[in-house]
């Protein structure tokens, strides 16, 4: 009787330990409310079926909020956040900024520069930046990496916006002073007003032909481990530099710079 009782107790103990083991795994993670905020109630796919693949000219002519379909090539990736990717893309005839396109991390990793994709979405404009939102995509065969287009001479021109989102180059520009929070002249700022820290966006002023522009190293695109981030931090007022980047817009031209070198 005692032996049987001891055996039963041992079995119960074993069962309790098994139960505790399972509990540990189940309770170790805090439940996250983070959800994939893909836009609900969109009928992109349905409507996009009726829209043919557009040329850049057709895309440019399309109204804001209208459905668009383009074939384009990934050039750089800005971020993957809550299962959404923000990427810079360009085809032979124009460039497209794709904002928060739902995709998994695995899919995002596969979107290497040059990858051809067909994008179905809606044309939108946010603070002057024309972009494709609420998009879906599929990967196609093909690859394309453009040469950076020199737009230095177009900076003060209304023509510049036609190159929006393209990979562009700026040659022989001069680093101008920015004012930090104490009113000192500095070559760059962390965030637009200097309120940031290392790792935040870098803002710096450059001039050509008597006009000064504010360029940005977008920290999601090029973080503080990149060459361009280090290069901008090493700038001095008066330096003559060449740059490459994507012709982004925020309340006016605001290029996202990806490379800086001494002017040739």
């Amino acid at each position, binding site marked *: *009787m*005692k032996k*049987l*009782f*001891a055996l*039963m*107790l*041992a*079995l*119960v*103990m074993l*069962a*309790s*330990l*098994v*139960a*505790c083991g*399972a*509990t*540990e795994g189940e*309770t*170790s*993670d*805090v*439940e*996250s*409310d*983070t*959800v*994939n*905020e*893909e*836009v*609900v*109630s*969109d*009928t992109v796919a349905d409507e996009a079926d009726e829209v043919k693949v557009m040329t850049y000219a057709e895309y440019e002519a399309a109204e804001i*909020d*209208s*459905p668009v379909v383009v074939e384009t090539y990934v050039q750089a990736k800005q971020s993957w956040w*809550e299962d959404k990717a923000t990427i810079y893309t360009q085809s032979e005839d124009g460039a497209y900024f794709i904002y928060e396109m739902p995709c998994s991390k695995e899919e995002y990793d596969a979107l290497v520069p040059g990858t051809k994709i067909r994008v179905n979405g*809606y044309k*939108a404009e*946010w*603070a002057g930046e024309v972009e494709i939102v*609420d998009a879906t995509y599929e990967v196609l065969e093909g690859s394309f990496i453009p040469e950076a287009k020199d737009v230095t001479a177009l900076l003060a021109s209304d023509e510049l916006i036609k190159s929006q989102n393209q990979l562009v180059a700026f040659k022989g520009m001069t680093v101008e002073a920015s004012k930090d*929070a104490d009113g000192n002249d500095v070559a760059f700022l962390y*965030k*637009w*007003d*200097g*309120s*940031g*820290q290392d790792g*935040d966006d870098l803002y710096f002023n450059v001039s050509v032909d008597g006009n000064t522009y504010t360029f940005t190293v977008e920290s999601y695109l090029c973080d503080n481990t990149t060459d361009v981030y280090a290069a901008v931090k090493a700038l001095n007022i008066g330096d003559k530099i060449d740059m490459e980047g994507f012709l982004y817009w*925020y*309340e*006016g031209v605001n290029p996202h710079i990806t490379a800086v070198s001494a002017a040739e």
Partner: protein
Amino acid sequence: MKKLRVLSLLLALLTITPILSGCHGARKTSAFVIPEVFDYETPVEISFWAKNDTNINQTRIYEKAIEDFCALYPNIKVNLKLYTDYTRIYNDVITNIPTETTPNVCITYPDHIATYITGDNTVVALDTLFSDEKYGLGGSELKFDGVQKDEIIPKFLGECKIGTTHYALPYMRSTEACYVNKTYVEKLGYTLPETLTWDFIFKVAEAATEKDENGNFKVNGQKVMIPIIYKSTDNMMIQMLKQKNAGYSDARGNILLFNELTRDILKTVAIHAKTGAFSTFKISSYPANFLNAGQCIFAIDSTAGATWMGTNAPLSDISEDKLADFETEVMSIPQYDPENPVMISQGPSVCIFNKRDPQQVLASWLFAQYLLTNDVQVSYSSTEGYIPVTSKAQESDEYKDYLSREGEDNNHYYSIKLKAAKLLIENTDNTFVTPVFNGSAALRNAAGQLVESVTKSVRRKENVDEEYLDKLFADTISLYRLDSLSRNSNEKLEFGKLPAGAKVLIGALLLAWAGILAYLLAEKVRKKKK
């Protein structure tokens, strides 16, 4: 024999104890216990994750607060990490909980804390700390002029309570305001009422959409005019529902958002989005940029965004040549019942994460308290249209002087900023917060998404009718997993079938108890026979 019985009993107890306690002990971090004394010698390092509104003055105040605090407690080092977005803080905290790499002190919202505390003792419950004689609020051992509990505005302190426990201290408070281009309102032939109503702003907004023969808007002569732009559409929906006494959620975590009045609100949104009278930050950009360019009449945004609003705003994202010259009025958000205005209470709170070293937690608590001292409260609140969360700071000579100097310059005393702060001071009793529970952050996002989706759909020429709203509700519930949160309190909970492992465990337990009883019975019978 007696020894054997005692041994059997002990064995039984030892065996049963883990059964009874087993499922509640796994990976549990011990609750924080206040040390007898704070160690002023051993170096301790704490991290402080804070949010600023891309405002250099706020960064400076954080830095100064840290410097001043560390001068009082030289063995404490505070590492500041700055964010400009609460959601990023929230996501980073969530990511860091499993690896026990959360910050020590963190600016946060109670909605977020409700998720954090689903972990074991992740966030420090503060009630015992509040009342600690030595290190509590106004405690005897503090090296600074700490705030007493009754000096924290009760309404704001109450907002930091989840269930019956305080998990945070309020840090700053703001509400939303409607920044009005009064010049354009009057140009359109209207006079601003004492309290804005939704009817009024929609009426003026529709009038502002009228264009001339060249396609320019008559009111501003420009190609762009979005008369109403709402920054935070989650707040918009929440406040409209509150004003209508409609359901949103309750303290038990019941989701009440998807109701008939919500449909009515969304239909109204659709009407005005269709004409171009209404848009949102997510769709169009910052309300301040449009307002300052003369391309918006009613810009609804936080009072903590006041320094960006108006022709003479000290902060601006648009170039000077785009600035329009107009008179700005700061008003409470539009109301359905102007006699009984209600508006959201928002703004950062500060919580403390639990750590293995109680001295580190105590250092965190001291720093969190330091953020409520007058120096920090008055200086930080005056960077934007925030107000201090303590009566001690609000009633201080320094703060009274600050408020009295409205409009003396366009920087520290910028009139719009001071008006925004006064708006909240005058309306503190009219503010409200939504119930906090695990999932309330998701519900808030869902409320905003309804407005965003309807606005986008209308712009894309989709038809917003009952069928559309049925689908939108269903999709939103699914997307934000609200179906798993919501339950009607009158309904009986349905847990489904027990898993096989649980059945085996219960069976074994019953068997064990049956065995014990049988053994005791057998012993009793044996004794009687003897």
